[in-house]
């Protein structure tokens, strides 16, 4: 019989109540923001004549789901994946294939005839079924990530080696999706906007609204999942792996399982994001979803918002992507310069990202600039006569 370990001292009631209050508060804030996104912002943007932005917002919210996954593995566990485009694309292609197959019986998608293929390849068959597609969107990326992660983490390959291997895996998937015209339409990718879903065209505004709402809801769900994962003992384990993996091993834990698990979860999030993004942008191509640049961009969203802060991942995604849209609409050439500078700046000046900075130094900095707060020290120092004496006589 296993005895459960009771804490030696019961936590004080005040602590419990405070935790409870913080939890309720957080739920309330998330609910308010979600309602704002669902009810207030779309009509507001449309009223301002910026209807296009609603679609962009939906797409970027979908990307934010992927960013949550990146934050989980990079911010919390310290694994920098440069290949999350794989899982994003797997999710996107799964839904894309289902949409391509919404045809009268006996027909196969148009592009096959271009390459002289008259019979549907076998691996397309299951995508006739909607439940299977829903499953495939997140399960296939999860399985691929688990397999790749197991092979890599088992051998304690980590740090930059892991990053390089994920990037190489990305190139492999790119070559496969890009080169196989007869199987998956190669460079041209899959278009989703002209096919039908739920009896309507996928580019129909009503359908797009549904996907916008789905993006918001799944983002909230993803946030809740990540928050739950990272707040308890699991979260402490992940941070421990990030900060000192050998010590975790010496303490009797095997990090491999945790790493594979969290890598698979983040792949599932990326797959869902890929599906939502694809259906809202109308097309998925290897050169967009599977390019090395896109996968590294995902990392920079998290870095800008703040590593190991889940809010930061969402905030950073929206910020960087809207900056990209606005900048590349106005000056297409400047965007790459700006993005490069962003990488440099966020790594050297703001290593904790915007939210991380606000949580640590920024708040005090703002207060001191506004003149609201004095330099805070230990309370005991404030009453120490010697310190008082030094302060008065140092002339500063």
């Amino acid at each position, binding site marked *: 019989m296993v005895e459960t370990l009771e804490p030696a001292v019961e936590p004080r009631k005040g602590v419990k109540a405070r935790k409870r209050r913080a939890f309720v508060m957080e739920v309330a804030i998330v609910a308010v923001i979600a309602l704002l996104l669902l009810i207030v912002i779309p009509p507001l943007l449309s009223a301002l004549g910026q209807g296009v932005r609603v679609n962009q917002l939906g797409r970027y919210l979908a990307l934010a789901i992927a960013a949550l996954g990146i934050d989980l593995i990079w911010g919390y566990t310290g694994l920098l994946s440069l290949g999350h485009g794989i899982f994003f694309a797997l999710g996107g292609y799964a839904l894309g294939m289902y949409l391509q197959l919404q045809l009268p019986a006996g027909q196969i998608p148009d592009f096959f005839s271009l390459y002289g293929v008259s019979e549907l390849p076998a691996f397309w068959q299951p995508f006739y079924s909607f439940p299977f597609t829903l499953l495939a969107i997140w399960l296939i990326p999860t399985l691929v990530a688990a397999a*790749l992660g197991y092979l*890599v983490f088992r051998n304690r390959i980590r740090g*930059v080696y892991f990053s390089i291997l994920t990037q190489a895996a990305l190139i492999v998937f790119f070559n496969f999706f890009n080169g196989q015209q007869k199987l998956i339409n190669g460079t041209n990718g899959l278009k989703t906007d002209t096919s039908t879903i739920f009896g309507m065209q996928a580019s129909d505004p009503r359908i797009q609204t549904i996907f916008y709402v789905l993006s918001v809801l799944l983002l909230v769900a993803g946030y809740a999942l990540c928050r739950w994962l990272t707040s308890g003992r699991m979260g402490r384990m992940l941070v421990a792996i990030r900060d000192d993996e050998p010590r975790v091993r010496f303490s009797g834990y095997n990090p491999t399982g945790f790493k594979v698990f969290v890598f698979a979860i983040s792949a599932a999030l990326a797959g869902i994001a890929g599906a939502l993004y694809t259906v809202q942008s109308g097309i998925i191509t290897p050169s967009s979803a599977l390019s090395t640049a896109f996968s590294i961009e995902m990392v920079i969203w998290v870095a800008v918002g703040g590593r190991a802060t889940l809010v930061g991942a969402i905030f950073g995604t929206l910020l960087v992507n809207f900056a990209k849209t606005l900048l590349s609409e106005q000056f297409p*050439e400047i965007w790459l310069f700006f993005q490069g500078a962003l*990488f440099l700046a966020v790594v050297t000046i703001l290593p904790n990202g915007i939210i991380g900075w606000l949580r640590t130094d920024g708040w005090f900095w703002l207060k001191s600039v506004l003149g609201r707060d004095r330099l805070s020290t230990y309370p005991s120092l404030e009453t120490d006569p010697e310190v008082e004496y030094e302060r008065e006589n140092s002339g500063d």
Partner: protein
Amino acid sequence: MTPILESLFGGLSIASVLLLAALGLAIIFGLMGVINMAHGEFMMLGAYTTFVVQNALKKTPLSDIYILFALIAAFIVTALLGLILERGVVRYLYGRPLETLLATWGVSLILQQFIRSVSWQLMLGIAIFSALFFGALWFAGKRLDFERIRSWLIAIAIPISAAIAWFVCDILAKIYKLPFTKPWFGTQGVDVTAPRWLRGGLPIVEGYQLPYTRLFIIFLTVVCIAGIYWFLNNTPWGLRIRAVTQNRNMSACLGIPTQKVDALTFAIGSGLAGIAGCAVSLLGSVSSNIGQQYIVDTFMVVVVGGVGKLVGSIVAAISIGLLNYVVASNALKPLISFSPQLTAIADFFASGPMAKVVVFALIVLFLQIRPAGLFPQKGRTVDA
């Protein structure tokens, strides 16, 4: 006989390019544990330097041997840039390899776009900006309270200098128009033509010849490796580099200036990338994203070879190159023709991109047996 010779040579020539590109990366990674994502872009800059040198020497009697000047120029340009990168960015990030990776990726993006849009206007703008900004810093550096106002000064000086530079360039662009604003290279690729003595090839068997450019690249690779080996083993600075590679803290304790060693190594590694770029430019058209084609393959060479020993990179490059060529050209087809299934599989993978799929799968399998590469550094640290 001919097919075997052909695949051997084809594999070797892929391997030589890979090795030349990976050499600098391996030295830098071995010494500092940082991955330089801008390595491919340094190669690209080396290739563009070759193009510039070729055009500069076109009408002179030196045009036949321009490639020698181009090699030297490419080495110097990229080594200087590497030095700037190390002193300006990388040295602040030691101990944080993942951040270094991201920062150098940012540099590679900037370099790619720079090559596309560089013009007299942009160059003048950068010159004015640097003069104003660094001038202001230098001027303020004389003040006693410089350290205190430094961050404010930088925050103010950047927008002001940028605004002035932008304004001046805008006016000049309106006066001088196209010659001033036209990009030097543009988004189109540029072509480097090999000098006359490198055209054609060495006939070996009837109907098959070894191209001189490929032979030249193999020769160049051998020279570079010999040079690096000589430098590392026979010079004082080489000794210091080897010492820091083996044990950084101990070397620092013994009075080796590790910062200088880092800077020097980064410069040499980047310079080798420039030479590799010069070699690559002989093989085909050069465009601003040429670095991206090579970067992952060269990383693979370093990962398979293991850190700290150059011989690992050499063996890894040759095996990856041969494997790549054999799979892509389907050279083994006569051997497996007895089985239709095997032939079908081999046919499926017989193209450049698909060969990479096979190579990657084999590399992942290989790392299951030897996670630290072919020739790992032996030690007792847990983080090996």
